[in-house]
């Protein structure tokens, strides 16, 4: 039952000079899987890779590679099974890029032999795949950081191993080579090579990895399918930051947006004004960000579930009154909304479209202004152009303004007004 895994790790513990770095790691990796290892700095990610490639051997627990105990393998055998792309390359002597890649063939070369045709073929292929073939006669020391990184990846590929470990392979690369490197790694995994990569960039992991191991302080916090591990709660807990996690409409994969700590900080200040936002149809997302950024407390409603504004509110952890998708606002939602309005200092009506379904929101605003609440209408476009309720919304707008609601034309003006009357 334990057989057939490319990498099998049980109860792995590791300590540097008695200081525990890794604790209680369990991992089972099948051939062809692409696994991302994530975690904050100092979580033990690089140490973990160094154990897997056989560099650090004084660990406790069981590490099996191809059903063989890692410690029973010689360096040469290890180098044929596992190749690693280290974070930094220390070479300070002038070898050409080709010579550096050729060193990757070392495990296959005998002390008394020369390079064989096979070595050259492999090296050529590896350099073509990493787009370093044109650099072959350049001195390694004179290459740029990104070029060096690609040459070292070629060196690792030249080892022709079934397991490929990468320690932040994209750290020195610009976005185009980041993508290219990850595409290459992904292709390798499709060819059956098992890839385990320490990644800094959560979104690269989200986009390419099938599974993610999330390390926190040397311990596995979560391991599983990428979308199950990369959730707002887990990332927030491990990294100590607030993020919003959404699904990319383009790739269908999750993506993670960090939310500035500044916003949360300002929100925490007591005495900041509470703004209730009446929005929908993508008219409020930007407003939510902007108001948060300015340090205001924000609530929102009533918004239909599946509306992008609803998604934004949830990802920003903004209290929101929601309504079933594509339904009119119900009595109960309206009452909940009125409660949020009661708790707010300012009510903002965004530049949204009105139909019969959401007129209730405007009536709530009208009640608020009648009770003496401050109401600001953001009308980037005039209300009649957004009125699909045969004039009812336009009429409500004129009532609102007659009762003292303020109309502004753009976001800056809005923010200024909210701040002014503080």
């Amino acid at each position, binding site marked *: 039952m334990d057989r057939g895994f490319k990498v099998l790790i049980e109860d792995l513990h590791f300590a540097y000079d008695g200081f525990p770095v890794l604790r209680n790691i369990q991992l089972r990796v099948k051939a062809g899987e692409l696994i991302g290892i994530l975690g904050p700095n100092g979580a033990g990610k690089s140490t973990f890779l160094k154990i897997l490639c056989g560099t650090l051997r004084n660990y406790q627990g069981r590490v099996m590679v191809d059903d063989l105990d890692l410690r029973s393998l010689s360096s040469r055998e290890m180098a044929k099974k596992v190749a*690693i792309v280290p974070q930094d390359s220390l070479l300070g002597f002038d070898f050409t890029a080709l010579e550096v890649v050729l*060193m990757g063939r070392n495990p296959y070369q005998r002390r008394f032999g020369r390079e064989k045709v096979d070595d050259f073929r492999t090296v050529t292929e590896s350099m073509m795949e990493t787009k370093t073939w044109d650099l072959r006669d350049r001195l390694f020391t004179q290459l740029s950081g990104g070029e060096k990184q690609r040459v070292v990846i070629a060196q690792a590929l030249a080892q022709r191993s079934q397991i490929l470990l990468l320690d932040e392979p994209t750290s020195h690369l610009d976005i185009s080579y980041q993508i290219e490197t990850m595409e290459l790694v992904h292709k390798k995994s499709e060819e059956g090579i098992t890839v385990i990569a320490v990644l800094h960039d959560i979104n690269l992991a989200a986009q390419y990895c099938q599974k993610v191991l999330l390390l926190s302080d040397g311990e596995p916090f979560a391991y599983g399918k990428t979308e199950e591990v990369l959730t707002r709660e887990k990332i927030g807990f491990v990294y100590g930051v607030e993020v919003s996690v959404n699904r990319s409409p383009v790739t269908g994969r999750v993506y993670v947006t960090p939310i500035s700590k500044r916003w949360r900080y300002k929100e925490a200040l007591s005495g900041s004004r509470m703004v209730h936002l009446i929005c929908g149809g993508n008219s409020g997302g930007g407003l939510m960000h902007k108001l948060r950024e300015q340090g205001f407390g924000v609530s929102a409603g009533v918004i239909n579930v599946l509306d992008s504004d609803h998604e934004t509110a949830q990802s920003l952890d903004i209290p929101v009154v929601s309504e079933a998708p594509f339904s009119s606002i119900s009595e109960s939602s309206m009452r909940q909304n009125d409660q949020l309005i009661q708790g707010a200092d300012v009510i903002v009506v965004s530049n949204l479209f009105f139909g019969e379904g959401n007129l209730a929101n405007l009536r709530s605003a009208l009640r608020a202004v009648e009770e003496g609440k401050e109401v600001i209408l953001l009308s980037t476009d005039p209300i009649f152009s957004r009125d699909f309720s045969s004039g009812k919304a336009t009429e409500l707008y004129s009532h609102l303004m007659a009762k003292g609601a303020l109309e502004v034309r753009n976001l800056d003006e809005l923010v200024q007004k909210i701040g002014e009357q503080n």
Partner: protein
Amino acid sequence: MDNTGQELGLTTKRTQLLKYMTFLMLALLLSLFISASLGAADLPLSTTAAVFLSRLPFLSRVVDTTRVESAAEVILLQIRLPRIVLAMVVGAALATAGVIFQALFRNPMADSWIIGVSPGAALGATIAIVFKIGHGMIGLSVLSLFAFMGAMGTTLFVYRIARTGTAVPVANLLLSGIAAGAFLNALVSLLMMIGQEDLHRIFFWMLGGFTGASWNRVILALPFVLFCVVVVLFFSRDLNLFLLGEERASQLGMETEKVKLILILLASLVASLAVSVSGIIGFVGLITPHTVRLVTGPDHRLLTPTSALAGALIMLVSDTFARLVLSPREIPVGVITAMIGAPFFIYLLRSRKRGLVR
């Protein structure tokens, strides 16, 4: 995609190596003849050539040596030639040791003194001289033996104290070597204070030179040095990998600790042999690989053999100068190598070119 080494331009390496070796061989041969002709008794180049060539198989019947005085023959064959050969052997040995240590320490400033060879040899020799061990028996070879044991003993001791668990980190080696060296130098100074009447002898031994060269010493050193240099050639790829750092080398399949032990043993062995027959001659082991690297690049498949020959040539030329400059008095060859080597080294440091650590 069917690139062979030829298309990749790697066979040019072999051609390059052939070129360097041919050039150095010719230079060595020429220097040998010139050096043998020069000295207190100047001999014409033709005499030198005739005597040497007559000793080669097949040529002995062709070359006519009947007109050469027997005194000249003795000077050439029993005094100058062993000295020349010994200088070449010692030069090659020191350069080879330098190549190995520079790769192991990943530093073009490393040399065999770094791991305690020189201070160890100095202590061994000083003990032999001060306590008159073997004095009057087989004489100088006992001194050589003590120097050799001192050098090897120190190296092994340094290797042992640098060991942590199963690994011998290179940084530990360096620091242990420096500590051991300082301690041994202190012991040597102490012994010199005790054996004041031998001060002159100790001093001249430590300056190094080939004054007492004989075929006996050549026979003592040549086979071992030759053997070690040839073995080192088979470790060229490992030496290259060491330049990537030990960790990376092991990730690329090298049994780092095993190979490191073998290489340290080889390097200390050749360096100890050299020191035991010639005393402490500085800078050749440091400068030679360094200079050669500027021409050949860092690939040890070129660097190691080329350095060995270049070391032989540099030592031969230096010793010839040592014999001639203040003739009939001799300058210790260590003085020559240091006086040429040190400024040259500074020049290299200042003009950071190919091969220097950035």
